[in-house]
């Protein structure tokens, strides 16, 4: 009964999305004279409620482990801890797509309920576009991946969830990314709406900006969390692999970063109109490409995809319709949209344009390196593209981008003289040069980590300069946000470069009671014992680690065996100090009775994720700042309207 309720709600929501689409387009065509116009906003809100209800039903099915539902049987198990039963709801294809449409429905409901800045006609066009996108995903769910499908006879027990996914970090990693993807779909709908009614105005950028900011924050958090998860869960201390799945989340982030800056220019300077629209389309395309890569199975093997292409083809067709349609519209309308205000090279807009071009180029490189192996595989030529390609080729564009990023925020809008900020530029250049010389003399470093460290140090200082000479208590939140985010990039960069340049590794076979060293650490293996969890057993090493002969810290890395499904995972143990992290893994027992230990000392490595969180925090600050000032504007407008009404009443 629960499953049927969920399914019925989903069909109803799809019907409302269709209504929203038809009514929206009719309203745009005959200028809102149709009676249907009044239905658009309520339809969007009701749709959000229904699809949320549907998702809640699926969560309920997982919570009670209803073994008559196919999805529960293939992804859950009655013995699993409750939190992982719940997270199992979206830890699979059907559930994650339902989560996607739910977030999309809620986003549509929210803009329908609160967004009043745009002209009504543009708003209708936006909600119509939102209806088209939602309808595509409802069709995908209902026609090719129904999450509520029943089994003819209930199964005796579920098959369990991949143990690698039974981790609190990963339970919340996919939803964050999906929130980001969906936020970009809203930005896409705004862009299409503005194109349809030719209203590419600063108000459009202001309406779109919170969604882009929110999406960007979610993507940043999702990527940071995913990277930390890979770092501690996979057991080898790697934090970024240029894996297609990671690239699938990085590409929308790069596009969203560019879109965010471009939308800011449009909102405050009425420039870069076509750029903003184009980036809005590109950002959502990258979300769709990411979804396609992750959800179609094409990554496991192009040939597996060719054998069972239903889902992948469906997403490809959707991608074609949405993106092809948007680009066609763009091509038809681009000539009627003027570029907006002009500006000089040495201006803040100039720096932002430069960096948007760089970000787009990096995006193109990542897209190329991700798709090219899939393309050649289709012709039975297998090549691998990995870090030795992405790092140097990406650096061609990243290095100039970081340099411009350091000085760009110091420039004035519209027109500035480069010599006005000569001292700041000199400070940045001196810091970078000094760091380059110092580190190349002190340590033998590869060129990329060296550049990363030097630019990171320079950028960390330069990113704080916009605050200089300002009254800190009166600095707008959005400015704080920018400074925090730029500083976060510098922090993460230093962490990445340091990890790559200074990591020390020790692989050792150690007898119980024996000890070994890695970097400044001495580690003693005190014992190895079996332990058991709710759905796994493990052997656990007891390690006593001391930094430079100081206080002893205990570590308990495990090697876990899950039984449903049977799989072995390593649970690394970490000791975090201010200057780095000790990473320990216990492996197999050698024939002579000694235990394999894998130990790493990674100086400054936590900065990678602290940096990522700072970037996200910057986004949150900017978002709060924007929303507060929007609310203030609304209150003010309401008060003015009130006063005018009073005056008219008096007269």
């Amino acid at each position, binding site marked *: 009964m629960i499953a049927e309720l969920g399914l019925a709600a989903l069909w109803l929501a799809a019907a409302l999305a269709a209504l929203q689409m038809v009514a929206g387009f009719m309203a745009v065509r005959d200028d809102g004279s149709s009676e249907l116009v009044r239905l658009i906003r309520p339809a969007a809100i009701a749709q959000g409620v229904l699809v949320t209800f549907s998702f809640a039903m699926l969560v309920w099915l997982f919570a009670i482990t209803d073994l008559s539902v196919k999805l529960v049987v293939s992804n859950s198990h009655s013995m699993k801890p409750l939190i992982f039963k719940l997270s199992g709801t979206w830890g699979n294809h059907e559930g994650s797509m339902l989560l996607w449409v739910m977030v999309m429905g809620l986003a549509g409901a929210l803009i329908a309920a609160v967004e009043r800045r745009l002209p009504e006609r543009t708003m209708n066009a936006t909600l119509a576009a939102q209806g088209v996108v939602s309808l595509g995903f409802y069709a995908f769910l209902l026609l090719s991946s129904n999450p509520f499908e029943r089994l003819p006879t209930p199964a005796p027990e579920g098959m369990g969830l991949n143990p690698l996914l039974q981790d609190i970090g990963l339970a919340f990693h996919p939803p964050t990314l999906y929130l980001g993807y969906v936020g970009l779909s809203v930005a896409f709908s705004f862009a299409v709406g503005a194109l349809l009614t030719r209203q590419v105005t600063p108000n459009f950028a202001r309406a779109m900006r919170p969604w882009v900011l929110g999406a960007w924050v979610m993507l940043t958090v999702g990527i940071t969390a995913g990277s930390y998860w890979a770092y501690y869960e*996979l*057991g*080898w201390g*790697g934090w970024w*692999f240029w*894996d*297609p*799945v990671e690239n699938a989340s990085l590409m929308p982030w790069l596009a969203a970063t560019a879109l965010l800056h471009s939308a800011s220019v449009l909102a405050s300077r009425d420039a870069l109109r076509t750029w903003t629209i184009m980036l809005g389309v590109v950002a959502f395309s990258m979300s769709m490409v990411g979804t396609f890569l992750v959800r179609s199975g094409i*990554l*496991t093997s192009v040939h597996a995809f060719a054998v069972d292409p239903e889902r992948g083809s469906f997403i490809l067709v959707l991608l074609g319709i949405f993106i092809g349609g948007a680009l066609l519209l763009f091509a038809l309308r681009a000539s009627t949209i003027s570029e907006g205000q*002009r*500006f*000089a*090279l040495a201006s803040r807009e*100039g720096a932002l*344009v*430069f960096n948007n*071009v*760089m970000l*787009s*180029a990096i995006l*193109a*490189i990542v897209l*190329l*390196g991700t798709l*090219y192996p899939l393309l*050649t595989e289709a012709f039975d*030529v*297998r*090549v*691998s*593209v*990995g*870090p*030795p*390609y992405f790092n140097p*080729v990406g650096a*061609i*564009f990243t290095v100039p981008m970081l340099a411009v990023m350091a000085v760009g925020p110091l420039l004035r809008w519209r027109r500035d003289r480069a010599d006005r900020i000569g001292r700041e530029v000199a400070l940045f250049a001196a810091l970078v040069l000094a760091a380059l010389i110092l580190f190349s003399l002190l340590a033998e470093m590869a060129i990329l980590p060296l550049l990363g460290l030097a630019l990171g140090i320079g950028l960390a200082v330069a990113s704080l300069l916009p605050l200089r000479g300002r009254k800190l208590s009166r600095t707008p939140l959005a400015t704080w946000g920018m400074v925090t985010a730029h500083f976060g990039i510098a922090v993460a960069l230093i962490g990445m470069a340091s990890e790559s340049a200074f990591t020390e*590794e*020790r*692989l*050792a*076979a150690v007898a119980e009671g024996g000890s070994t060293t890695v970097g400044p650490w001495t580690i003693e293996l005190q014992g190895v014992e079996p332990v058991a969890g709710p759905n796994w057993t493990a052997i656990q090493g007891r390690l006593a680690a001391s930094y430079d002969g100081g206080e002893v810290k205990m570590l308990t890395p495990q090697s876990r065996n899950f039984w449903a499904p049977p799989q*072995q995972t*390593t649970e690394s143990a970490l000791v975090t100090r201010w200057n780095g992290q000790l990473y320990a893994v216990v*492996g*197999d027992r*050698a*024939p002579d009775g000694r235990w*394999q230990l*894998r130990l790493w000392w990674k100086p400054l490595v936590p900065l990678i994720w602290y940096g990522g969180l700072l970037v996200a925090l910057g986004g949150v600050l900017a978002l709060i700042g924007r929303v507060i000032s929007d609310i203030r504007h609304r209150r003010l407008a309401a008060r003015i309207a009130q006063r005018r009404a009073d005056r008219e009443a008096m007269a």
Partner: protein
Amino acid sequence: MRRLILLLNAVLLCSLFGPALAQDTMPPAPYAYRQLDDPGQEAAAQDLMETLRCLKCQSQSIADSDAPMAGDMRHQVRIRIAAGESPDDIRTWLVQRYGDYVSYKPEVSSTTWPLFAIPVLLILLAGGILVGRFRRRGA
């Protein structure tokens, strides 16, 4: 010593090409989980291992994998580095055996040239966009 290494190679090559099941039951090769004594050589081996794909895993290098085959390949890389072979020679040797797929570092060839041509085009395109945009302004 050299003969011993050749012998080891022979044994390991068999295991590399042998059925997967046989690999799982055998203990890992000596240098799968053991570093070389010379730090310079170990660093060179590590750099190379990070750019070789574990053929049995999904998107992991042999330096990041517990798969038996990755262990065997790490062993191969380490003993070859220890025997004085250059990393490039070892990469070529592995590519000859397993194809381009094993190396994460694509080389310019008839199948991979777009990977290198497109970035060059991108540089030109980016430069073109910027120059076009700002020169028009200045005029």
